[in-house]
């Protein structure tokens, strides 16, 4: 039962704001749930993807296989994956986090690989010539220089994760998805719109925060970049 209200855009927006205000407490709770799922995913997915990305730089064949598999993983529909995982992981957040970890792999592995191999060859060659071992070159040259690029991959993954996590509510993982599914069941457009906006704003905010960190890393590397306002602020506070 979708109510098509004849009201103009102003009163429409007013309705959403009223809905948000009335359900503020519930929204905060959903935000916490959504954040926890996202954080769990990032904490598991990032180290895994970085290790795979680093390993890929040692062997071209491995790189091809790893990137191909990570690409395939992204094409599996999330609902199908949840269904397949429920027998092993039950319902709730475990199968959702598992799925999101899979989805996060491609952007982070790819950026790790590109970041590490994209370091100016004269720099790694200088490291070799000065007597750094392969490991030392990785730790002291390649990873620090590639870190902003790797973080850009993480940003990419986080935006995907926040979006897809919404679907996880379908199997009881909680988060803003709960509100959307409720809205669909009850024909409550306000609930759907408010939850959708909340997901987008959440994703954008996290993205902006990470982008700021990325810029700070670039500055620390001595890069000359056009600084965001937030970067200027933090950089000045740190200096």
């Amino acid at each position, binding site marked *: 039962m979708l109510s098509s209200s004849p009201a103009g855009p102003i009163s429409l927006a007013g309705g959403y704001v009223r809905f948000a205000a009335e359900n503020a407490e519930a929204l905060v709770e959903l935000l916490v749930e959504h954040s926890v799922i996202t954080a769990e995913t990032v904490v598991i997915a990032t180290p895994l993807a970085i290790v795979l990305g680093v390993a890929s730089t040692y062997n071209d064949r491995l790189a091809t296989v790893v990137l191909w598999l990570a690409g395939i993983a992204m094409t599996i529909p999330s609902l199908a994956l949840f269904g397949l995982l429920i027998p092993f992981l039950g319902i709730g957040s475990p199968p959702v986090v598992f799925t999101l970890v899979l989805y996060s792999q491609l952007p982070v592995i790819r950026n790790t690989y590109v970041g590490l191999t994209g370091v*100016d060859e*004269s720099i790694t060659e*200088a*490291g070799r*010539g*000065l007597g*750094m071992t392969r490991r030392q070159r990785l730790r002291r*040259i390649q990873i620090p220089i590639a870190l902003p690029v790797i973080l850009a991959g993480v940003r990419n993954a986080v935006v995907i994760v926040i979006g897809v996590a919404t679907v996880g509510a379908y199997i009881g993982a909680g988060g803003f998805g709960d509100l959307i599914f409720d809205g669909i069941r009850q024909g409550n457009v306000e609930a759907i719109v408010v939850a959708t906006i909340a997901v987008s704003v959440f994703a954008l905010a996290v993205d902006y925060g990470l982008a700021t960190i990325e810029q700070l890393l670039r500055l620390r*590397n*001595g890069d000359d970049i056009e600084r965001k306002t937030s970067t200027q602020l933090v950089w000045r506070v740190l200096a």
Partner: protein
Amino acid sequence: MIEFENVTKTYPDGTTAIENVSFSVEAGTTTVLVGPSGCGKTTTMKLVNRLEDPTDGTVSVDGTDNRELDEIDLRRNTGYVIQEIGLFDHRTVGENIATVPKLVGWDDERIDERVRELLDLMDLSRGFRDQYPSELSGGQRQRVGVARALAADPDVLLMDEPFGALDPITRDRLQNEFLDIQERINTTILFVTHDIDEALKMGDRIAIFDVGEVVQYDTPQAILDDPKNEFVADFIGEDRSFKRLDITPVTEVMGPPDGEYAAAIDGNTDATTATDGGSSYDGEALSPDDSVKAALDRLLRSDAPALPVVENGEVIGVVADEHIRASFGRRSDARQGAT
């Protein structure tokens, strides 16, 4: 001491960069590899610290085949200035310079002191220490590259076109500074350039490369006096005599102070008029460090038929036209009869 014995290097893609190359660099001296682009200079250099291994022949360092040495230790004991400079852009100038001392585990205090010493040595202000390479000029970056290579007092120094991307004036200044430094550090140096003038200026010995092979390996004087073939003669260029005058110190050609020119130089021997570098024309007296080219230049500008060479206020010799001419005769057998 570095020794190349019949060394050939073929890259995996089939390019033979050098073929059957032999030469040696005496301990404490500078050998310059010079030749056109792509002739294998960089490859030759990389064979010393095992950034590449030879396909054939041996490269030995202090008498040991370097393939028997641990490559990491070998590289840490070998200063390396790479052609592209290759500074670590994400590290400050100080951190760049401290790279090898840190790798070999010096304590912080010693590293700190060494970095300061090297900034002074390379005439970089101490303020650069906390700046990033991207904030420096090309010349300053090259100095940092050299300082980084010198940091852990290596026994061997490899310099691949260290003054390559510089304007002539800065280059000339860095060359002179480096000649001074070289006297102080007593390191075995292999220096690559494609500029013959730089080779003549910097080298105790010069190896001239044609594509993949050494065509002549000799002292600068010998190469100028007696180019082995047309390639070498072409490479040196038309003004061979001038180049030789430039690298010959006046002390090698001057005559005795009490000879026939004693009267001519009388009154010109005031020590305060002697110049050190040869760049000033205030006085008529020459210093022992002056080149014959500088002497000739001043003779041409002066009314006097001869100029005194003065060291510590004492006339140690005299240079006139005939001495300069005779020095050519003395070296070149072909012209012996003519003079």
